[in-house]
């Protein structure tokens, strides 16, 4: 009898918990104003979706900061920032499909795999959504403008020149290797092309011995760099050319006790690399201003939606960034930043 009563009380309790939950959901539903996206509202209001390759890494979070700043400055932009937490291109496609159904104005995407996203991007354009790319480009015909952080040539040449300079200038000699991202990463492949070109044309005493492709995976980059250190004892420099492979590579050099003996340089955010610069494994970090990249992307998105930016324009008024060049359908951010011991503490992203 006691058991039965207790059971029945338990049951009542659990039932009321369920009822309460349902009631909360219903109440939440009534309490919140319907917020259907901007199309129905005043025409100058613009909904911009910013889609990074991967949500939650320092690089893209700092882009988001800049984007927020631009949205606040402009005043008429509702900014939605979301991306896959594990970097899946298929999920990026699903997000574009969802935003297209919602009828947003502009989707700015940094495609993880252009082929996977092409269909969703084309369908979005057919449905009247403006698609631009930023940070990395998509397939032809899938977007109107590409907000390009720096030309592949600037970045490729920049990394090689800085490595050579850190190794002693024109007299630098020895073996170099690259730790890239995935083998299909369009940005990295374009940079590698220009890096190879620059080494061959300008630095006859430097030799690029091999390239590793760890993907967007820091542990794998770390292992690949360890393998390189063992396989090529004569190495004088390593390039880590993604914000994930750079710290992995630097960590490998540090743990092998060869900081200063094998120099590491590459692309990453200053916060990720500060400790390696201070410990001497890294002399210089190459990057563009990522906050400015997010800022410029939102500016371009808004201008496109309101008709301020059109095909064929050669310059673009980018708020606090001043006037930016437009080459064809590329809007250029156009400045490579170099962080080193002297200035790295001034940046926080």
């Amino acid at each position, binding site marked *: 009898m006691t058991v039965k009563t207790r059971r029945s009380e338990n049951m009542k309790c659990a039932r009321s918990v369920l009822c309460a939950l349902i009631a909360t959901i219903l109440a939440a*539903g009534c309490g919140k104003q*319907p917020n*259907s996206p901007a199309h129905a509202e005043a025409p100058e209001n613009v909904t911009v979706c910013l889609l990074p390759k991967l949500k939650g890494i320092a690089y893209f979070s700092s882009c988001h900061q800049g984007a927020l700043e631009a949205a606040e400055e402009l005043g008429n932009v509702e900014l939605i920032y979301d991306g896959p937490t594990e970097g899946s*291109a298929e999920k990026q496609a699903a997000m574009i499909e*969802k935003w297209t159904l*919602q009828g947003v104005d502009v989707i700015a995407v940094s495609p993880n*795999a252009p082929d996977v996203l092409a269909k969703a991007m084309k369908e979005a354009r057919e449905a009247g959504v403006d698609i631009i790319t930023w940070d990395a480009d998509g397939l032809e015909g899938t977007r109107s403008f590409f907000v390009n952080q720096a030309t592949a040539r600037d970045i490729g040449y920049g990394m090689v020149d800085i490595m050579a300079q850190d190794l002693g200038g024109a007299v630098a000699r020895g073996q170099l290797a690259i730790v890239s991202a995935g083998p299909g990463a369009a940005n990295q492949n374009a940079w590698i092309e220009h890096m190879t070109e620059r080494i061959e044309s300008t630095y006859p005493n430097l030799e690029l011995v091999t390239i590793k492709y760890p993907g967007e995976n820091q542990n794998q980059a770390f292992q690949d760099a360890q393998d390189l250190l063992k396989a090529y004892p004569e190495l004088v420099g390593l390039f880590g050319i993604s914000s994930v492979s750079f710290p992995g590579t630097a960590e490998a050099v540090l743990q092998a006790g060869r900081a200063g003996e094998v120099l590491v340089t590459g692309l990453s955010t200053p916060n990720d690399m500060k400790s390696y610069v201070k410990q001497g494994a890294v002399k210089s970090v190459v990057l563009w201003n990522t906050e400015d990249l997010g800022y410029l992307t939102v500016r371009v998105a808004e201008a496109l939606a309101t008709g301020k930016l059109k095909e064929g324009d050669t310059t673009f008024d980018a708020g606090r960034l001043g006037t930016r060049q437009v080459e064809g359908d590329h809007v250029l951010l156009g400045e490579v930043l170099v962080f080193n011991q002297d200035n790295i503490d001034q940046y926080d992203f």
Partner: protein
Amino acid sequence: MKRLACFNRWQEAVLLLLLVALLTVAGTMDPAFVSPRVQLKLFDNMWELAILALPMTLIIITAGIDLSMGSTLALSTVTFGLLLSSGCPPWVAAALALAAGTLGGMLNGLLITRLRVHPLIVTLSTLAAYRGVAEGLSKGIPVSPLPASVQALDTSVLGLPVAGWLFMALAAAFAVGLAATPAGRYLYAVGHNEKAARFSGVPVDRMLFRLYALSGFLAAVVALLYASRRNTANPEAGTGYELEVITAVVIGGTSIYGGRGTILGTVLGVLLIHETREFTQWQWSSDELNLTVTGCLLILAVLAHRVLARGQAEESA
């Protein structure tokens, strides 16, 4: 037995009620979400999981589990992708991918019935092993783009994609098979009391073996559908699917201890989890909410299940 049927109908009524409540709330917050056009398009994200939930229901009814579904899917995907990129004709590649998935399922079945290792342990090992093989064979690199003939598989017939029709047909077949054939009854018997079922002459081992093989085969079918829809053969495909599929089946009222469950319940479970997730994403655009929502739904389902089970225990007392 009669009480059991009653119980399931009640559970399904509760699920239906929750689904209606959810859609009503969603419709109040944003009418666009419940429009047929939007719903139909969002269903594209559901068919694959829905297909996988069917064999999972049968497996859980036998008190088993298949954690390796997502990895088997990846294994088939990679087989498909590698064969295509080596110039194999698409239909040969597809046939071999289906074979790879089925073999994966058969190996699970063999280990479970011959070595008498618990399905949880067997499929937990193959969850890791199949994914490892998939990553190893492909070196982690997705094959993309796929030939136009493969992308053409992602097409609509009478307003519904191939995957949608396939799911409907399979769901009907599974529902009838489970409710109205001796084999279906045997599955419940195995789940209730495997030993008793054996002594009563039910071919337990043969049934379980075929069931896990079927699960592998359907995982491979889904692999092909997914690859054609997303134009990529990605070794990461299907990661975490097992969690979503099991959640849907358990929400649908199938007892994790076996012996109880229906296809209708599973279909409602899939719909509930799908609509909840899509709506959260629709309203709050936040990828990290996905896992949280799935986890909360699973807990709620188990809680609701316990309440209902107690209610029933009391009625029969």
